[in-house]
């Protein structure tokens, strides 16, 4: 075994030897270390090469020493020095006195130099230096070379191993000056340029003030001690103690900072040998940063310390901590420190805060909403001045006038990207998105500060508080930027200046504001206003302003579009005025062309929107993603999917389409310049649509894994992974958010002028509240059918078809109609004026309902009342004054069941208001969940009149969705269950109810909670489920189940075979539950089959059609399932299935 190893070793050595010398540097010190250890073990069997090299080095040394004692050489070398020195004046006589200036310096020469290799050797000999023929990290202090190939320039660290790379002129000039000059100015130009940080470090390492003080050789002997100390005791204190041993500290001038830098260098060099726990190491970093805060030279220290993990030898160790490798909490930590993530999630935070804002500023908002006449629009655009920097700098007055930039890291390689720079820095040409090293090249004094997300949040919150205080219509663009619609609120300039001054008072950060008539102009005005200013574009000035503008200043015009425009000789907006809209649309696409055309004229029709519905939720990690084996990737996907699932759950939405994005290293591109960055990548993305909306981590993970595997990439090449969920639906509803949005608009447009702000606010923030919208809509849905069609209440078969809509794709128009109906009811409640009554009267044939349809006084939300305009409030008081004598309980509409139509209208209205009340009042889960249960007349008519007011809208138990029940908080669920039990006890079952309530509840719970995965197992799960269920209603399915059991035939065949039985089994009574079950059955079957067996899907639909002709149940099912099937076929095949 050992022999083999050695053989291998020697092979390696030979390989190393074969490559050109420069290339071998990287491996040299490791290899030689190994060699020596081998030698210790077994000196006899050492490889020939190792011995040869050692011998050779020894000989060279001897030779060199002999030479140095050879006085004869002196003259010759002096002549050479004279030849090459700049001054060209060297007094030979002085040579002897200054002959030891290079004491302690050991050089190694690479490549072609002037003076030559040999001459330099002589010079070193002459002046007391050491000349190494072979590079060894431990022996060499300086590398001398004039040129470097590109490959070495790119990675000078691998070449220099932290040693300075200096031009030969340094030697010559030092000799001429009679002392060792600072080598910093002699650094190889290209390296200095590419690594501006390095120069600052190295100047700290060898301070210009210390020029005369050569670095003694013995410093190297000390450093293992330091690094050991560092390893054991990572307190910065120990560094300082250790520094005392460093001979450079005999100089009084430099602060400990400089010493620290030296120490770090030492540490760094030894890191490779020592097992460094990277966590501890980064701790030191932080402490180092803290310690040096405020000191001028802190950058140097930070640079140096960062380097430990950031760049140097310990890349591997750093990679372990900073990448997906080894760090189980990588994803969480990643999102903790990501700015983009902060900005992304900030919106959520903002939206969840939004409600509270409006409670505070109701009065003001009220005015805004009432005043909505046709006068000139006014929009203010507020933008914080370099927000990310300003917030950090405000607490550090010493930085106020200095150039400062925010960046996540301040590593020595300068590979961090600057995310924001303040104005002094911008004056130097520092821009966001620049690499730190480029920025430092432009502005050497640039201060890099880290993010302070907490402060950002605080400031953003304060700012938005102020904005909301002044204006009800605020569109948050990001945490530091917003649009305000201040139409009809007085002088917009004055408002803007008040806002600006308040922002400054509250946050000590400045904001700029642009004021004009639309968003585009306001935004452009802000650009003019910056920094810390206000600019107003009056409507009359628009033309002049726009004419001056360059095309690239228009929002939406990026680099590509600018170049395209330039190629058409369109440079300014005035140029755009010359060309026709047709031309623009033809050249740049319909949308872009239209945008350009109207923007150039200062036209912008976009409204100030209060909140946008989010269309997707996801998480993407493109930094630090490194996998070695597929298991790493899978572990990563677990954490990523957990993160996404958490976000979905927080936002209370579920999604159907799951997209996995993968960044793969572009072939041939090496390690990226940004540390642990993604570098040049090819982007891939695949998505899959799951059958039903989900927020479950397991499903996300399963799909993500499947998608990931489908790429079949080498995981080592993966540089970034993103998981995104789209086609979102609010939790607890089947409606997609899109549908919700439609309603929301309807509600908003109607509500805006009249109803209280509270109502609107409830509808505005997207994630949470779209759920509420759907709730309102759904609870009124069955009523609409009834109200609109004037159908008697007690026909259970007829309320059935509409109920399962929550699971099927629904037509938007339908929704809208329903909703309008609901609105009219609501309107009637809020402001029962004549106009509204007419509207109601239109939909019902009966006269306007009596005021008894109002909800009981006890159910009115005081907060709603408080926010109502006084006149409406007066009206309400009047109405309730009349009702005051009536007992609270009996004011329920139940007693009005005299004529069906009137009853329906009445009930409809009351319930809507109940729901809206509920929505307003309840903070807890009941708000979201309780109104979900459809309120049916059947239930109400059987309800005793003495129900407690809290749960007055309790639906019959048969209508309860067990999944909703199970999702309720325990306390709430118990309350509900008790309530049902109480009703049960109090009131004996009416004969109309087929199954007693608790039993039914139980059946339902078991059937619909287990309605998932109906087709798993052989025979499928549903076979047992329906067979066992003794419920008469399931007889249809029982027949089916019996036939299916043990059958290996496709479902369509089974279904066809039961066709004759089905017709008999079908009775007049069909409950929603059965339909639901049938729906699920077929739906899941289709989902299972769609990818692999389109024929079967087609067959099942055909059979269904035939069955539907015979049975009402199946007709309903067919109606509901057809759009779904066509939808899913469209998704998978892009066409329309011919059935």
């Amino acid at each position, binding site marked *: 075994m050992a022999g083999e190893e050695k053989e291998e070793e020697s092979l390696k050595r030979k390989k190393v030897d074969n490559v050109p010398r420069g290339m071998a540097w990287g491996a040299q010190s490791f290899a030689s270390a190994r060699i020596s250890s081998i030698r210790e073990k077994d000196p006899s069997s050492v490889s020939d090469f190792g011995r040869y090299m050692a011998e050779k080095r020894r000989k060279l040394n001897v030779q060199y020493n002999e030479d140095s004692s050879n006085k004869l050489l002196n003259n010759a070398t002096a002549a050479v020095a004279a030849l090459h020195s700049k001054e060209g004046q060297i007094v030979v006589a002085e040579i002897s006195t200054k002959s030891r200036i290079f004491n302690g310096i050991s050089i190694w020469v690479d490549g072609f130099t002037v003076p030559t290799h040999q001459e330099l050797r002589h010079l070193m000999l002459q002046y007391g230096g050491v000349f190494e023929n072979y590079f060894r990290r431990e022996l060499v202090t300086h590398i001398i070379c004039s040129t470097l190939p590109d490959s070495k320039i790119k990675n000078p660290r691998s070449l220099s191993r932290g040693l300075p790379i200096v031009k030969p002129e340094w030697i010559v000039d030092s000799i001429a000056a009679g002392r060792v000059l600072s080598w910093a100015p002699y650094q190889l130009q290209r390296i200095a340029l590419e690594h501006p940080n390095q120069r600052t470090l190295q100047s700290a390492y060898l301070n210009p003030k210390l020029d005369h003080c050569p670095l003694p050789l013995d410093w190297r002997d000390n450093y293992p001690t330091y690094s050991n100390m560092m390893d054991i005791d990572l307190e910065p204190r120990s560094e300082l103690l250790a520094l005392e041993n460093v001979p450079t500290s005999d100089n009084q001038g430099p602060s400990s900072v400089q010493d620290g830098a030296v120490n770090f260098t030492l540490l760094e060099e030894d890191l490779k040998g020592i097992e460094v726990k990277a966590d501890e190491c980064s701790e030191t970093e932080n402490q180092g940063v803290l310690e040096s805060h405020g000191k001028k030279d802190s950058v140097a220290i930070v640079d140096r310390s960062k380097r430990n993990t950031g760049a140097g030898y310990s890349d591997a160790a750093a990679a372990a901590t900073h990448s997906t490798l080894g760090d189980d909490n990588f994803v969480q930590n990643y999102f903790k420190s990501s700015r983009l993530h902060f900005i992304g999630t900030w919106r959520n935070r903002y939206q969840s805060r939004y409600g509270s804002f409006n409670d505070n500023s109701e009065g003001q908002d009220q005015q805004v909403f009432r005043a909505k006449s046709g006068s000139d629009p006014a929009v203010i655009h507020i933008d914080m001045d370099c927000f990310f920097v300003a917030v950090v700098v405000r607490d550090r007055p010493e930085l106020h006038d200095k150039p400062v930039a925010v960046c996540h890291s301040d590593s020595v390689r300068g590979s961090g990207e600057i995310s924001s720079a303040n104005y002094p820095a911008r004056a130097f040409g520092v821009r966001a998105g620049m690499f730190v090293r480029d920025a430092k090249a432009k502005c050497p004094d640039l201060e890099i500060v880290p993010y302070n997300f907490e402060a950002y949040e605080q400031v953003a919150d304060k700012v938005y508080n102020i904005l909301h205080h002044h204006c009800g219509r605020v569109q948050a663009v990001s945490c530091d930027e917003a649009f305000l619609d201040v139409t009809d609120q007085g002088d917009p300039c004055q408002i803007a200046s008040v806002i600006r001054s308040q922002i400054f008072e509250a946050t000590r950060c400045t904001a700029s504001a642009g004021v004009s008539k639309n968003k585009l102009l306001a935004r452009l005005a802000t650009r003019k206003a910056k920094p810390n200013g206000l600019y107003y574009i009056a409507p009359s000035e628009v033309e002049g302003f726009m004419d001056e503008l360059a095309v690239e200043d228009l929002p939406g015009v990026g680099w590509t579009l600018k170049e395209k425009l330039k190629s058409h000789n369109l440079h300014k907006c005035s140029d755009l005025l010359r060309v026709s809209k047709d031309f623009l649309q033809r050249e740049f696409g319909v949308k872009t062309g239209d945008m350009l055309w109207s923007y150039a004229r200062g036209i912008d029709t976009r409204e100030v929107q209060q909140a946008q519905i989010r269309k997707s939720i996801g998480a993407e990690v493109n930094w630090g993603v490194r996998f070695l084996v597929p298991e790493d990737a899978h572990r990563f996907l677990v954490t990523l999917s957990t993160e996404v699932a958490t976000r979905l759950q927080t936002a209370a939405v579920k999604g159907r389409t799951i997209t996995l994005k993968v960044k793969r290293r572009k072939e041939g591109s090496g390690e990226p310049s940004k540390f642990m960055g993604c570098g040049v990548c090819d982007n891939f993305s695949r998505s899959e649509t799951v059958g039903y909306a989900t927020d479950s981590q397991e499903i996300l993970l399963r799909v993500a894994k499947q998608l990931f595997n489908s790429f079949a990439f080498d995981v080592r090449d993966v540089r970034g992974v993103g998981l995104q969920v789209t086609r979102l639906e609010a939790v607890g509803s089947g409606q997609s958010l899109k549908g919700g949005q439609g309603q929301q608009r309807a509600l908003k447009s109607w509500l805006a002028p009249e109803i209280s702000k509270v109502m609107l606010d409830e509808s505005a923030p997207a994630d949470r509240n779209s759920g509420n919208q759907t709730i309102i809509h759904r609870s009124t849905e069955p009523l609409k059918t009834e109200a609109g069609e004037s159908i008697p209440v007690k026909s259970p078969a007829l309320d059935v078809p509409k109920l399962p809509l929550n699971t099927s794709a629904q037509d938007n128009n339908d929704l809208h109609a329903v909703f309008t109906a609901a609105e009219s009811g609501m309107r009637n409640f809020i402001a029962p004026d004549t106009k509204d009554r007419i509207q109601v009267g239109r939909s019902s044939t009966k006269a306007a309902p009596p005021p008894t349809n109002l909800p009981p006084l006890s159910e009115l939300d005081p907060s709603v009342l408080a926010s109502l305009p006084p006149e409406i409030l007066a009206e309400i008081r009047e109405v309730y004054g009349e009702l005051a004598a009536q007992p609270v309980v009996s004011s329920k509409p139940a007693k009005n069941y005299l004529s069906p139509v009137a009853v329906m209208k009445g009930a409809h209205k009351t319930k809507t208001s109940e729901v809206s009340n509920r929505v307003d009042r309840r903070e807890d889960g009941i708000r979201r969940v309780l109104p979900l249960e459809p309120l049916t007349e059947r239930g109400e008519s059987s309800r005793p009149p003495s129900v407690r007011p809290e749960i007055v809208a309790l639906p019959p138990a048969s209508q309860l969705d067990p999944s909703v029940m199970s999702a309720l908080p325990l306390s709430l669920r118990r309350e509900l269950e008790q309530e049902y039990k109480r009703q049960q006890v109090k009131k004996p079952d009416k004969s109309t109810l087929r199954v007693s309530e608790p039993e039914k509840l139980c059946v339902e719970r078991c059937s619909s909670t287990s309605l998932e995965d109906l087709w798993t197992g052989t025979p499928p799960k549903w076979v047992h489920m329906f067979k066992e269920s003794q419920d008469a209603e399931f007889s249809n399915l029982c027949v089916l189940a019996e036939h299916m059991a043990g059958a290996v035939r496709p479902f369509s065949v089974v279904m066809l075979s039961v066709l004759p039985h089905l017709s008999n089994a079908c009775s007049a009574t069909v409950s929603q539950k059965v339909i639901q079950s049938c729906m699920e059955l077929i739906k899941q079957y289709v989902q299972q089959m769609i990818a692999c067996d389109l024929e079967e899907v087609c067959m099942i639909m055909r059979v269904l059609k035939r069955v539907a002709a015979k049975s009402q149940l199946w007709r309903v099912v067919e*109606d509901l399932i057809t759009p779904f099937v066509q939808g899913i076929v469209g998704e998978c095949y892009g*066409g*329309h299935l*011919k059935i």
Partner: protein
Amino acid sequence: MEVVRLADQGDVAALFCEFLEVCIHQLLSVREVYPPAIFERRRYFNVPVQWARHPDLREYIHSAVSNLQTWIQQGAAEKIAIKFLDANQIPVEKVIFKLCLKKLTGTGLPAQHLEFALRGFLLKICVSNSALPPLPPDCSWELVAYMKSLSADNASKSQFWIPADPNDRSNQSFTITTIKSMRSSYLDMQLYVERPGVEPQKESKTEP
């Protein structure tokens, strides 16, 4: 009878290609693209099929399909379509074979099983005419393969194939008529026909 075993995906792909070739002949005959006279009756999997007699046509089909084999084997080819174009070169019908090869494990599976399943397709193709309206006169046809991904390395093997006009995948809606589907442990295959235009959905449902 000797039991032929399909050992790996290559064998399945080879068998499928052979089958595809027969299917193309059969479809050309059934859809009456060429006069019936140019076909002769043959037997494949014990099913009577029509086989073109023209050597160039045979050669064309054979080379096209056999060039596809590597792609099919690698799972790169997702769908293979026979596209019928009318006299104005506008697609009127696409007969699509959508396939998904499975990974074979163990000693492989007897070829007879697959042949048995494929026979169903041939029979279905024979009668598919009844489900489809006749093609317009002067039709031409082409073979289109839809790729999941196209790797560069095997491009040399398939010089025969040229990249299709990307506009071909228009967003125009079409109606799908299924002909036959198959699920097996070798491969999943679906045969269906796409025809442009959506039949008006019968919205006969009146609100109750």
